[in-house]
């Protein structure tokens, strides 16, 4: 398959999209891990959240 | 009605008395205009071609400069609490404040335009066209800027953050303002089309601005 004279443009744009999407995914996964770790840390230190509250009194 | 008149009267009086606001705006406008010939070089034709753009930019930036504290001052001394509680609908009160600001800070810019037109080598028609577009367009700048000013109060933030939030909103006004003046001066296009879009933008912002500002004040005060 030949991409013609503008191959570099096409390849760059596909590569960029891949890179940015991967970056988003990595960021979100890392963020998830970080929050989970902090949550575990806090709950280990004895602070617990009250559970079993209904949606109505949540706000 | 008389409540709104009182609010407008007060705001204009303060703007004129403490000065600051209105005068700094005009001065900034002047600075921008004076600076341009240095940037562009002594090419008079080019200068007069850029004239409308320069004047519009100056007006935009000058209104940004003064609008920032439209609500903050009232918030800090507690007036805003009373205004929110009053029997006057908050949307109208916001509109009145913006109108007062426009009268004190926007109108002087328009009055100063002919003088600055001379500096920029604009001829009579061109100056008139720019003044007309400014007259039609600066209310839009004030009324969209008001949204940012209201956000400033509720966020306890000021200055640059607001400018960043508000500037994108005022870009269309700038585009059509400049386009209309260009058309009047030289362009192949007609003056009417962009000018009517400009007026439409102004009318539009006259409606959106007070509502958005009032909404953000209502939800954000504490």
């Amino acid at each position, binding site marked *: *398959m*030949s*991409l*013609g*004279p*503008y*191959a570099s*443009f*096409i390849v*760059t*744009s*596909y590569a*960029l*999209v891949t890179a*940015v999407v991967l*970056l*988003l*995914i990595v960021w*979100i*996964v890392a*963020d*998830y891990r970080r*929050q*989970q770790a*902090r*949550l575990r840390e*806090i*709950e280990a230190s004895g*602070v617990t*959240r*009250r*559970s079993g*509250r*209904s*949606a109505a009194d*949540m*706000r | 009605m008389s409540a709104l008149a009182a609010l407008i009267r007060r705001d204009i009086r303060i703007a004129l008395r403490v000065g600051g606001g209105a005068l700094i705006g005009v001065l900034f406008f002047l600075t921008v205009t004076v600076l341009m010939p240095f940037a562009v070089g002594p090419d008079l034709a080019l200068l007069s071609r850029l004239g409308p753009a320069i004047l519009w930019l100056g007006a935009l930036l000058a209104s940004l400069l003064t609008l920032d504290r439209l609500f903050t001052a009232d918030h800090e001394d507690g007036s805003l609490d009373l205004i929110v509680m009053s029997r006057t609908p908050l949307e109208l009160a916001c509109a009145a404040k913006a109108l007062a600001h426009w009268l004190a800070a926007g109108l002087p810019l328009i009055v100063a335009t002919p003088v600055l037109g001379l500096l920029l080598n604009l001829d009579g028609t061109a100056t008139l066209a720019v003044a007309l577009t400014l007259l039609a367009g600066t209310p839009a700048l004030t009324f*969209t800027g008001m*949204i940012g000013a*209201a*956000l400033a109060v*509720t*966020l*306890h*933030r000021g200055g640059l*953050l607001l400018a*960043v*939030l508000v*500037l*994108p*909103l005022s*870009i*269309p006004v700038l585009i059509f303002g400049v386009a209309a003046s260009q058309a009047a001066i030289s362009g192949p296009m007609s003056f009417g089309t962009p000018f009517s879009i400009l007026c439409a933008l102004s009318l539009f912002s006259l409606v*959106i601005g007070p509502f*958005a500002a009032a*909404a*953000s004040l209502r*939800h*954000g005060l*504490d």
Partner: protein
Amino acid sequence: MTLTDLANPTRFLALTTRILPWLAGATAILLAIGLYQSVMAPDDYQQGATVKIMFIHVPNAWLSMFVWGVMSIAALGTLVWRHPLADVAAKSAAPIGAAFTFLALVTGSLWGRPMWGTYWEWDARLTSVLILFLMYLGLMALWRAVEDPSRAARAAAVLTLVGAINIPIIKFSVDWWNTLHQPASVFRAGGPTLDKAFLWPLLVMAIAFSLLFITLHLAAMRNEILRRRVRSLQMMQASSSRTFSAEAGSASCEGNGSKEIGIA
């Protein structure tokens, strides 16, 4: 599962955890199919191979507008129903939307160079997209700059709704002003004018990217809920470890920070 159940953060978390793998899988499969089709698509008689950029440019451009639409609906949720989950949805959508807008801008420029001979031109479509990008950045700055999340949410909501005016401007700019950019050829009155050979890969890619957005958004919302939970637990921690003197406001002792979305 009713809508009110969905509105409960705990249920929302449980549900998200359950469906995220499926969503991710579907996204991956569709993306693979779309990519294969894009690679296999024939060259355009006018644009040559560069037409392949379309398959990523257009979905990103659509999504950049779609995400703002999602944020606008969330903004209504914040202002009208004062719903905390709406705050979360709006906040976590902004960076993803900004990323899509950025990609639309970059792929557009990369396409523009061979097609128009310039990377950038100040025309209405291009500039209105740039303004969209700036507004995404402004919103993100706002979320970052304000400590109190519910205060930031309300301000951001007002701004999002005001900024929504930009969306029709982007959409119709090509019709209102004559620009370099070509007018709509898929979503237009009278049906698509695009050739089937390009239409199919484009549609598959569009669906794949939409799924990608939904997946990322749900995951980001989950992160945000967890972040708020951490924040309120930290505030509880701070308040429970302190010894209240009689005059130091024991009224505020009970349930400090508990009225946050995090505690549910």
